[in-house]
């Protein structure tokens, strides 16, 4: 009986967690390396960052417009890990976000900010366009039109 409960609990937590996975930069690099011709549009955001929250609908529209193309939108939250269950997952559910959402699982900002881009000050929103050949980082806000144009001119 007790084991049954534990299994149930595990399944429940697992299904909730499945919506927002923890992501290390090694995971991210692996994903990009395995992406073949896919271009990843990786947005760094947080539930507490108002300009980030304001531009998320544009990323959603961009994601939905590119479903059949080799383009993947990854929304990487920089929220505190302690806020995953209470803030991030409810936010993703309430806003019905369809793009893939992650929470960055890196302890040291000093290392990960530099690793994502040497020029990044650490302010968000920030977005990385990356495929096997090109890597472009922008510390700025995007509209859907700007996302489209940046992708078109990524060479």
């Amino acid at each position, binding site marked *: 009986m007790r084991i049954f409960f534990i299994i149930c609990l595990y399944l429940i937590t697992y299904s909730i967690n499945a919506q927002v996975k923890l992501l290390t930069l090694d995971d991210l690099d692996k994903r990009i390396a395995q992406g073949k011709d896919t271009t990843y549009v990786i947005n760094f955001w947080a539930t*507490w960052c108002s300009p980030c929250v304001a531009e998320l609908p544009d990323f959603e529209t961009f994601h939905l417009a590119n479903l059949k193309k080799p383009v993947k939108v990854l929304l990487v939250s920089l929220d505190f890990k302690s806020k995953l269950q209470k803030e991030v997952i409810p936010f993703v559910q309430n806003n019905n976000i369809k793009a893939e959402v992650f929470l960055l699982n890196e302890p040291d900002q000093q290392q990960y900010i530099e690793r994502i881009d040497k020029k990044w000050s650490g302010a968000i929103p920030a977005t990385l366009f990356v495929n096997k050949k090109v890597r472009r980082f922008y510390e700025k806000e995007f509209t859907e039109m700007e996302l489209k144009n940046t992708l078109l001119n990524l060479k």
Partner: protein
Amino acid sequence: MKNLFLIGFMLVSSFGFAQNEGYKVGDVVKDFTLKNVDLKTVSLADYKDARGYIIVFTCNTCPVAKVYQERVSALNASYASKGYPVVAINPNDAGAVSDESFEKMQALAKEKNFSFPYLLDPNHLVTKQFGALKTPHVFVLSKTDKGNVVEYIGAIDNDSEGENPAKVNYVQNAINELSVGKKPTISATKAVGCSIKWKKG
């Protein structure tokens, strides 16, 4: 041709965003006069006995800045008496985010019992002069014959969540080194913060 133009434009604009036009380590800081929450004005020159300053760009609303409020107070408690007072500046525009208003700054300073000035920077003049890009963003200065020189730019520590086992207190270390006549071993760091809420239009 059109594409080439677009690419060129994007390169220029991304460069513009990434380029920090403010102070770098080693630069001499121009003094400023800003209004404090107690309605009096504050300038660096007011601190006759200071050996340096801990300039903290912080604000009312940013969750990262909030997490660091107590640590900023602790810095002032530890280092003001040693000649390195905290001077906090709010870089945000109340027109962009109403909770960044001067009245809300006064309320916060009172509620949290700030023992240091918390200054309003209308039109972001001092913010741009320093090149602060986010909250919290710290500049440690030392007073020299040349003027107030930037010695450290960046984060307070590398542990915003309070759970990094390899915590390094960058600002404390920098001041400890400065106070014995050394240059900070680590003079620039980066951290995630809230972008500055610039005045619109």
